[in-house]
C-alpha cells in the first residue's frame, strides 16, 4: 500500500491509500477524487486524467512515453510536470506522491 495526495485546483488536499500495481488514475476513481474524469477508462486515449506531478516527485515518477506525450496534446494548460495519471503505476517508490489536478479536464 502507498499513499497518494491529490490537491485540487482550489488547493484542497486529499490523501488516500493506493494499491501497489494499480494506477494513480484508478486510485483517484476508487476514491471519488474530483478533477479526474478518466473518460476512456485508462486506455491512454482521452487526456482527461491529466495531473501535475509535484516538482520533488517528477524525477521518481519519470517522463511520459511517446504515446502519452501525444495524448497530452489534448489536455489543457500542459506544463513540464504534466502526466496522465492512468500511465503512472503505483509502486512502493512513489509512496507519498503528491499530484495536483487541473481546473478543467474535458
Amino acid at each position: 500500500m502507498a499513499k497518494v495526495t491529490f490537491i485540487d485546483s482550489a488547493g484542497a488536499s486529499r490523501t488516500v491509500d493506493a494499491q501497489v500495481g494499480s494506477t494513480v488514475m484508478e486510485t483517484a476513481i476508487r476514491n471519488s477524487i474530483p478533477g479526474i474524469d478518466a473518460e476512456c477508462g485508462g486506455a491512454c486515449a482521452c487526456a482527461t486524467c491529466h495531473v501535475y506531478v509535484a516538482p520533488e516527485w517528477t524525477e521518481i515518477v519519470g517522463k511520459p512515453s511517446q504515446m502519452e506525450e501525444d495524448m497530452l496534446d489534448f489536455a489543457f494548460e500542459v506544463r513540464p510536470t504534466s502526466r496522465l495519471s492512468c500511465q503512472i503505476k503505483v509502486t512502493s517508490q512513489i509512496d507519498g506522491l503528491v499530484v495536483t489536478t487541473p481546473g478543467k479536464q474535458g
Partner: protein
Amino acid sequence: MSEEIISTDVAIVGAGPAGLFAVFELGLLDIKAHLIDILPKIGGQCAELYPEKPIYDIPGFPIVNGQELVDNLEKQVHPFGPTFHLGEMVESLETLGDSEHPKFRVRTDAGTIVECKCIVVAAGGGSFQPKKPPIPHIGDYEGRSVFYSVRRIEQFRDRRVVIVGGGDSALDWVLNLQPVARRITLVHRRDSFRAAPHSVNAMHELVASGKMDFLLGQATGLKGADGRLSAVTLRKETGDIVDVETDDLLPFFGLTMKLGPIGEWGLNLHENLIPTGTQTFETSTPGIFAIGDIITYPGKLKLILSGFHEGALAAQRIHHYVYPEKRLVFQYTTSSTSLQRKLGVG
C-alpha cells in the same frame, strides 16, 4: 431543408457496440431500425477512443481490438439492413402516441426526421463534442470568432486565423485554410506533432516559404469586443506572453463526452445516467428503452457484454409494441430455419 419524414419501427440513438448489436436482436424479431450517431463513423468509443487498443473481455474473443469488434458487428447486422444517420445529433424527441401505443418523432441537427414506435437510447457516455479550452470568456466569442469545427471554408476567406493543436484536425485545417485565409498561425505546445507526417512536412514547407506562421506555446487569453476577436494571448515556451492579432480562433483539442440534449427528453436521470429495470430496460417513458453505458441499475457494470445482453432483452419487449397482435416465440439461430432465413444463411 426537406421535411421528408422517415417512418420505421425503432430509432437507436448511438451506433456504438450496444446500439449496433441491438440492430441484430431487433432484426431477428423482424423489427427495422435506424441508427443516429453524432460521430461521422459507427462504433462509438471503440472506434473513436481506442480503435487499436486490445479488448480482452468480449466472450469468445480472447483478444480483439476496438475497430475489429466494430467491423465484426457491422458484418453481423448487415443482413438486417439498418440505416445509419452519421454525423448527426438528435436534437429533439417528441412523444406522439400514448403509453399503450407509443410513437415518437426524432429530429436531428441535420434536419432528419424519423418517426418510430420505440426508441433505444444507446448513447454510452453521451455525445462526443469538441473540447473547449478553459480560456477565460471563450464562450463570448463562440460562433462568431471561435469555432471548434469548420463547416464552410469560404467563411475564412481573407481572415487572420489562429489554429491551436497538433493533431490531424489542426494540421488538415491549416493546409485547407491556408490558400483562402489572409494569414494562418498555428500554435502548438511542442515541436512534435501527432498528425500524419506528410501534413506536418507540408506545414513546415509553408512556414519556411513565409506563407504562414508557427508558434510554440499555449493560448491563455482572448482580446476583442462584441464577440469579435482582435487578438489571442499566448504563453510561449520561453514563458514570454505575446498577443497574436487575429480575426478567428480554431482550437482542436479532441473530443469529450457530454450528455447533451438527452437530458432534455423528459427521462428520469440519476447522475447523468438513465435508470432502468433489468427485465426490459424500458425507461420511465413507455416505448423509450435504454441500454449500455448510459444506464444504471443495481449491480450495473459498464461492460460491452452487458450492453449486448440489455439489447437482447429490450428487443423482446419492443416486439410487443411493434407487433401487439403477435405472440413472440423464442428461437435459437442454431436451429430455427426462419431465423436463418433472415440471416441469409438458410
